């Protein structure tokens, strides 16, 4: 006669913990793999804008970043920005410089595109349209979400590269040309790939597309 073996209390506890552990492992595996899981994707067509002609939509793997451009603050830079957005030049450009919770930079059209990413030169590329002058006459406080034109160490060397700051940067005022502000989707940018201690991101995330709303 086969004797039925009863599970002891300690065995029940161990089994319970194993099941809990398995559930946690599964959940964390899913979350780690899917970094965009809690990121809200904003649909610009469902939002009313005061100046729709100055609204740009930057799409990344985690969704849309909706940016309002400031032509009154920096007319030349916004004009350049719109020209490049309109021609699709920013599509497939890498977020080549990402500093966790501080700043993300993209827009190297020469060495930072998906099809010809050059790690040795990314960040030094040009658009081919020439440089434009820094526009610093208007007092402007750089706060989280503001978009600015990147430049070399010298003034008046702005071209196509831009940055978006993820924290307030009081020292940027009077240094960099402001071009706009993220209205929706800053959390999308916080999910852009960065590597701690690395200046340039190896195998970076890319802009899927960047277009004007109108």
């Amino acid at each position, binding site marked *: 006669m086969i004797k039925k073996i009863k599970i002891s209390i300690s065995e029940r506890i161990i089994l319970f913990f194993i099941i809990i552990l398995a559930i946690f492992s599964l959940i964390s595996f899913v979350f780690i793999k899917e970094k965009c899981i809690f990121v809200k994707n904003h649909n610009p067509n469902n939002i009313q804008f005061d100046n729709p002609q100055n609204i740009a939509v930057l799409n990344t793997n985690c969704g849309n970043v909706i940016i309002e451009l400031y032509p009154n603050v920096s007319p030349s830079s916004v004009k350049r920005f719109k020209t490049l957005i309109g021609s699709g030049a920013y599509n497939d450009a890498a977020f080549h410089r990402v500093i966790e919770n*501080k700043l993300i930079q993209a827009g190297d059209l020469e060495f930072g595109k998906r099809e010809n990413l050059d*790690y040795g030169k990314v960040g030094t590329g040009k658009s081919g349209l020439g440089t434009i002058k820094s526009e610093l006459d208007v007092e402007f406080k750089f706060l989280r979400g503001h978009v600015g034109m990147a430049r070399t160490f010298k003034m008046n060397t702005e071209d196509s590269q831009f940055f978006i700051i993820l924290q307030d*940067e009081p*020292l940027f005022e009077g240094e960099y040309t402001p071009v706009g502000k993220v209205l929706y989707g800053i959390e999308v940018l916080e999910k852009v790939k960065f590597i701690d201690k690395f200046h340039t991101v190896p195998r970076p995330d890319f802009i899927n597309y960047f277009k004007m709303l109108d």
Partner: protein
Amino acid sequence: MIIFRVFLLFFILITPVKANTIYNLIKIPNLEIYNINTTNNLRYLYATKPFRLGVNVKKNIQCFNSDKKTLDKKYKIISKNLDRYSSDFLKKINLKYIVLCENLSVAKINTAGIPNNLTRTLILDIKFNETYFERAIHHEVFHIINDSHKEFFKENEWKNFNNKNFKYTKCSTCNNKWNLSLYNETQGFFTEYAKSTASEDMAEVFSHLMFYQNEINNDDTIINKKIQFIKKNILRIDNSFNF
């Protein structure tokens, strides 16, 4: 080959820990904001740790962090003097960042300040000799002015003010003429240090003009020519400038 490339890439891409906004702007490490809410838009930064700078591997410029009490005390003096320069004027001469640290030296020779008009930065030694400290601030500001407007401060024109048999040394540290005390009998120079180079001489005249303001009464014709030269050219940069 692939491993070699990966290895090389690692060293090309890696940077010191995390990116620092101040370092990216003016290429000086270990700084924090002291005060940026100023009427003339000067940004005061202070060293949190010692730092070294230099164009070559030697990095022969060195400065040390200071304690808060000294910083607070000296900031008051420095800002009082630098507040005399308007925002417009500072823009025209390319001065925006003031770095406060102590025991500043170049090649182990102590100095009151190091101006750099390209980075728009003036590093000031807040432990510099107290007797000359305030005047030295204006002296260093003049170097920024001069570097930004060389077209106005022509050394050959300046040298003609001196007696024909006088010659400056090749550099400001090429001899031991470092005394900053005001001469009783000027004979063309405010201080011994003014005799080192034309640009130091100009800086000494400017700093005396700024520090003593209208108290300079001098019968020295050379000094008076030099004063007029400095005044004329400063006003060419900004005609609303007040000495």
